[in-house]
């Protein structure tokens, strides 16, 4: 596969390491009332769609950016690649 890195352009997927669903960015608040329940969901249940999937790839043999890749799990077509840091900020993560 070829991942179109937002900074570096198309790079071979063998330079990357895959983690999983980009929902892993949304780590729950440890002080929420139902924090344990939220962490269990966060850690274990997945939409696992047959279709568009937002997922985390790490450019380990590259610039060490974590990326959020939107990829169709049926065709493997990649439609969007973003820096995970930008996504995380956009989703309200900070310190």
């Amino acid at each position: 596969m070829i991942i179109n890195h937002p900074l570096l352009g198309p790079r071979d997927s063998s330079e990357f390491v895959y983690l999983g669903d980009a929902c892993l960015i949304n780590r729950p608040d440890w002080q929420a009332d139902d924090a344990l329940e939220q962490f269990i969901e966060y850690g274990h249940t997945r939409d696992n769609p047959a279709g568009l999937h937002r997922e985390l790839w790490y450019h380990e043999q590259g610039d060490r950016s974590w990326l959020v890749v939107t990829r169709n799990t049926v065709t493997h077509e990649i439609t969007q690649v973003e820096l995970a840091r930008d996504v995380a900020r956009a989703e309200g993560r900070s310190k």
Partner: protein
Amino acid sequence: MHDLTPLCALGGAEPHTDKVAGVTLTETPGHTLASVAARLGQEDACTKHLGTLLGSEAPGVGSWVRSEPISAFWTGPDQWMLSAPYDTHEDLAAQLTAHFGATAAITEQTDAWVWFDMQGDGVEQVMQLCANIDIEKMPVGAAARSVIHYMGVYVLRSAPDALTILGGRSSAGSLHHALLTAMRSAL
């Protein structure tokens, strides 16, 4: 002045050189290296400091600015690798820390890497047997990180017929073997 004797990455007291057909592969221990990573919120300041140091723009994505005595190539967002002659800049990291102040994190990287220079007719063909980078489209002054046989490397283009390859020092022997094998095969 201390009295310890350094070794080259390939294990010899002197750097190693190989020649296959018209291409020479040389181990080049004479560089110091230090990484520069901008502190959060200091990206612009850091980039500016780097520009001052190089006497030109700081290298952008995928590029390598060569100047005297310090050169720099881009390694990641707001991160660069700087190099300088070992003889005059053994304390490069310390110098940079002073120069960048609170705008960047500086880390000594000199001995984390083995530095190979490959020069001659056919370096592109050799690299095609090594790394999945589009070497034909890589201009002089470009820097790419990739993999050669499971080893992370930086490939820098120094001239139309010359490449610089930086690999992890501990696996210098394996990288040397991979490069030399590719040279024998391609040339």
